[in-house]
Structures are given as structure tokens and as C-alpha cells.
């Protein structure tokens, strides 16, 4: 087993937050408690010995059933030490997750994408809107219960230019 300094440090610092450490082909995943997620991530970024300063991606996972239903996964990279770490946390269907967009600026859009695709909400996010789909889109396409092609995907749809949107709001 590859020694994982970050895991040891996390276990030491947040003994009750770390739910499990998994090792698969040299990649480490640490599952942490949802409530402590922010503190854990902040520590990982700011700790002098770890310095996970790059947030590579934030991804959502829908397990369909099971509880909690969703998982949100943070891929971290340390530019200085060239280390990678995966932090996962479980989110129930109606629960919110704390934003980390103030810790890594990159999280802003990444969290919007997770919201767009899974409908997972991030509390205190500065601008939680859909990012890839149109604003009037109904549903969250990467959820397991979303029909593969979407509903009425081939039907005509309204195309509104920006100024038309303004008119609609006024009217």
C-alpha cells in the first residue's frame, strides 16, 4: 500500500470526519463527512506540508438508490509536491453542500456544473445557476431517473434572444 501522508494527517486532525480511505491502483480516495468537508478541504489546501493548491475537478455521482443517494467528488492536485488526492462525500437528495468557491476560485463553475447536471445545491455559492444547459431547462440530466434522451428533446423549443428575455420579464 502506497503511503499517503495526507490520509495520515487527515486522520490525525479530523478523526471523526474521515469515514474511509480507499486505495485503487495508486489513487487514493478519502471519504469525509459532509459537515466537515469545507474544513478538510481548506486544511488540504493551506497545510504547508500538503499544499493541494489546484482543484482539478468537482464531479457528482448518482448511485440511483442507496443512501445518501449522491456523492460529490473533489479531485485535488498539489503543484509543489505533484501529489493527487480524491475527496468524496455523500449528499442526500434534499441536502445542501457547502461551497468551496471561496477556497478555490475554480470551484465556482465546477459546482455550477454539478448543480446543472445533478441538482445538488451548494450553499453560499455566489452565483448558482445552470452553466451548460439553458436556464429554462427542466430536470437534471445526469440523474439516474432522467430519461436518456430527455423529454420531448426533438420538439420545437423557444429560442429567446437576450433582449426578448428582458421584454418577457417586463410583460
Amino acid at each position, binding site marked *: 500500500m502506497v503511503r499517503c501522508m495526507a490520509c495520515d494527517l487527515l486522520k490525525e486532525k479530523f478523526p471523526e470526519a474521515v469515514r474511509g480511505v480507499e486505495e485503487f491502483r495508486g489513487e487514493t480516495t478519502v471519504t469525509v463527512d459532509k459537515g466537515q468537508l469545507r474544513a478538510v478541504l481548506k486544511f488540504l489546501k493551506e497545510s504547508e506540508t500538503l499544499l493541494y493548491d489546484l482543484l482539478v475537478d468537482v464531479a457528482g455521482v448518482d448511485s440511483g438508490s442507496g443512501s445518501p443517494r449522491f456523492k460529490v467528488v473533489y479531485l485535488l492536485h498539489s503543484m509543489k509536491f505533484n501529489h493527487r488526492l480524491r475527496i468524496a462525500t455523500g449528499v442526500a437528495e434534499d441536502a445542501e453542500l457547502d461551497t468551496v468557491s471561496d477556497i478555490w476560485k475554480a470551484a465556482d463553475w465546477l459546482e455550477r456544473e454539478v448543480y446543472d447536471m445533478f441538482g445538488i445545491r451548494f450553499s453560499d455559492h455566489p452565483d448558482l445557476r445552470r452553466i*451548460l*444547459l*439553458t436556464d429554462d*431547462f427542466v430536470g437534471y*440530466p445526469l440523474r439516474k431517473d432522467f430519461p*436518456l*434522451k*430527455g*423529454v420531448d*428533446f*426533438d420538439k*420545437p*423549443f423557444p*429560442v*429567446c*434572444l*437576450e433582449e*426578448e428575455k428582458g421584454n418577457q420579464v417586463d410583460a
Partner: protein
Amino acid sequence: MGVANTAEASLQEVINWARKNSVWPVTFGLACCALEMMVASSATYDIARFGAEVFRPSPRQADLMIVAGTVTKKMAPMLKRIYEQMPEPKWVIAYGSCASSGGIFQTYGVVQGVDQIIPVDVYVPGCPPRPEGLLKGLISLQEKIAREPSGMRKIVSLPWRSNG
């Protein structure tokens, strides 16, 4: 009377001849098909032979919109705006399966054929079509332009414009 008609007919012919040989496309590529469109303007395929090499960066100076690639529903308003900004007369080539019908992307995010939003003159099938396909599409469009009698081509106004 007869003289006037003949004169008008030949004037129309001259106009059509000029229009069909200077179809300037707007620079507008959306996905993989756009690369084939770019190749069409290279020395090998040389779209300049048909008077359509002047890809205009501004829709205000363009006659033809080659919708080359996948049109997402998020992109649809921009596409429509560029189309509206082009002066009349204007033509549209739906280049590739994606632009013609949504192609392989039968999904919630992709417009299933650009003719859902703007009127299309020529469809070029293929994924992607070879540059020769675009040239053939362009020639078909030129034939269509040459056939256009005066006054046939209506000003295309999009629904909300006419509704006021």
C-alpha cells in the same frame, strides 16, 4: 411592354449571376464539421473558385451562413442572432448531419436540425461531409440562386418581429 419585360428579366439574370458568384459566408463554425469547412477554403479544395472564399468575420457583410457543426440549445439564440444580423438576401447551408438533423446527438441538449430555428436552403449530409460536399452544396445553392425570379425571395422575418 415586351421590351420592359425582357429588360427586367435580363436585369434579374445579371443580378442573380452577380449574387451567385459572390456568396460570402459568415465565419461561423460550431464543431468538428467546421474543420472540414476550413479545409474547403484551403488551396487543395479552394472554395475561391466559386466566389465564396471571403469568410466574413461580421454577419453584416455576409450572404451565406454555413451552419457547420452541432448546434446546442444553449447556442441557438446566438445562431439566431447572427442570422438576423445578416442583411438580405441571405442563404443558409446546413452542413453535416448535426446541423441537418441533430446527427448522432439525439439528446436533450442539441437542436434536432437547425431548420427548427432558421430557414435552410441546402442540406449537406455526412459526418462530417468532405469538403467536396460543401462545394457541391455551394454549387446547388448557386443553381438555386440563379433560378430565383425577382421578388420571389421574401424578407424572412422571425415570429416575434412580425408580432410586434
